[in-house]
């Protein structure tokens, strides 16, 4: 389902990252970079919580607002019970909607904010998301100090938190429309190849978005997928041309942009809810304001992986929500 928005804008954004991201090619674009993975906290879970608070505080400071001016906060992360988001929100005595959509949380948050504002229910929303490499490794994979070999298709969960202020006050970046994705089962069972699990959901959402808006792929200056990584990106390109007869030419994946794939130990690239917005809110928005891209379709992808279900030998479903962003000059 695609929803068209009239006057919804992303007014301000904030990006907080860990050490790996700041050493990557986009390091100079981020607002705050931490030197280690603890961020001065006792454990990684609290570090993630802290990064969310920092991202929200930066976005409020940039827009010269206080939390009282924000009608609703919408956000989520990757950990069980979206704990970092819930704990972070206990600092702000404001309405909060916690969402879980794995690595596509950012676009779902933007869509939900835009719906609430367009409907006239609220005026300002802050949507945030975060992920933390070692906290996610601990919950989903192996202990961090365990050095068992990883496959080439393994992705590296990005560390960072992002927040965006959405309102109907005119600004350069406009949320033009949003497509709410469906849960797609690609029949993949390989937890070390998340790109393969998610690429089908991205393809499904892109084709639905184009059908609903009656546009061709050329309408966009850039199609940006979430965190498919090197191999997921190849799969998506090939599947799009084979299944939908769409050639993805002006296309990139944030998973391969966030890190220096040759010199950083990140295997197939970046993943995690923070990956897509970290790249979009920093580098892509910068390029959009400079005029390189005018219309961008951000298709964040989330693998709805549950370790228990994987142990039950079930496949990994995935979902992808897309938003169309435009520059208003």
């Amino acid at each position, binding site marked *: 389902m695609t929803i068209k928005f009239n006057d919804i804008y992303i007014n301000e954004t904030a990006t907080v990252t860990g050490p790996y991201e700041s050493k990557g090619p986009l390091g100079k674009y981020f607002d705050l970079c931490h030197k280690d993975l603890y961020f001065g906290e*006792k*454990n990684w879970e609290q570090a993630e919580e802290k990064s969310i608070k920092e991202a929200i505080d930066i976005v409020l400071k940039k827009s010269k607002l206080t939390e009282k001016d924000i009608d609703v906060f919408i956000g989520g992360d990757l950990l069980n019970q979206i704990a970092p988001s819930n704990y972070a929100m206990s600092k702000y005595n404001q309405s909060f909607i916690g969402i879980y959509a794995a690595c596509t949380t950012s676009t779902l948050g933007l869509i939900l904010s835009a719906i609430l504002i367009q409907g006239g229910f609220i005026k300002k929303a802050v949507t945030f998301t975060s992920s933390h490499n070692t906290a996610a490794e*601990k919950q989903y994979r*192996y*202990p*961090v*100090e*365990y*050095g*068992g*070999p*990883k*496959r*080439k*298709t393994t992705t590296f969960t990005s560390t960072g938190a992002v927040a965006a202020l959405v309102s109907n006050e005119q600004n350069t970046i406009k949320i033009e429309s949003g497509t709410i994705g469906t849960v797609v089962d*690609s*029949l*993949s069972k390989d937890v070390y*190849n998340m790109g*393969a699990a998610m690429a*089908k959901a991205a393809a499904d959402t892109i084709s639905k978005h184009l059908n609903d808006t009656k546009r061709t792929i050329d309408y966009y200056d850039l199609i940006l997928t979430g965190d498919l990584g090197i*191999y997921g990106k*190849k*799969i998506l390109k*090939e*599947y799009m041309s*084979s*299944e939908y007869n769409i050639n993805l030419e002006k296309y990139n994946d944030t998973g391969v942009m966030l890190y220096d794939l040759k010199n950083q130990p990140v295997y197939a690239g970046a993943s995690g809810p923070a990956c897509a917005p970290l790249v979009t809110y920093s580098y892509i928005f910068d390029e959009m304001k400079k005029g390189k891209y005018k219309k961008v379709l951000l298709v964040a992808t989330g693998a709805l992986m549950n370790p228990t279900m994987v142990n039950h030998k079930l496949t990994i479903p995935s979902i992808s929500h897309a938003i169309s962003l435009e520059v208003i000059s």
Partner: protein
Amino acid sequence: MKKSYQEIVQKNYPKENVLTNAIIAFISGGIIGIIGQILIDGYSYWLDISTKEATVCMLVTLIFFSCLFTSLGFFDKWVNFCKCGLIIPITGFAHATMSAALEYRKEGLVTGIGMNMLKLSGAVIIFGVVSSFIFSLIRMVVGLL
């Protein structure tokens, strides 16, 4: 002709360097074996103990250093490079146990370390005990014939 999604996934799956990995594992695993043998010979020579006792001392030494190096934070890089060369010997078992213990230390001694330390290596203990039971049973039956 349209390709199925899983066919495209298979086509784009990168090849792992099986041969290189096997050679690295063979050499590094061999080095661990040599170190073990030197330790056995050394212990039985210097401490004047039997080979059986020296073997136990050798195992304890390897376990100690695997745990120490894991705690110091660089052993995971070695394991990642040597792969099965360091995972199959007792060093791998010690590394897996120690890394889990380090990971869960912050969740408390009992609920953290106690309940999670064998998260990775527990399976090795269970199936080690089960398989040694089966093999000793076979050996006993064969011995009776």
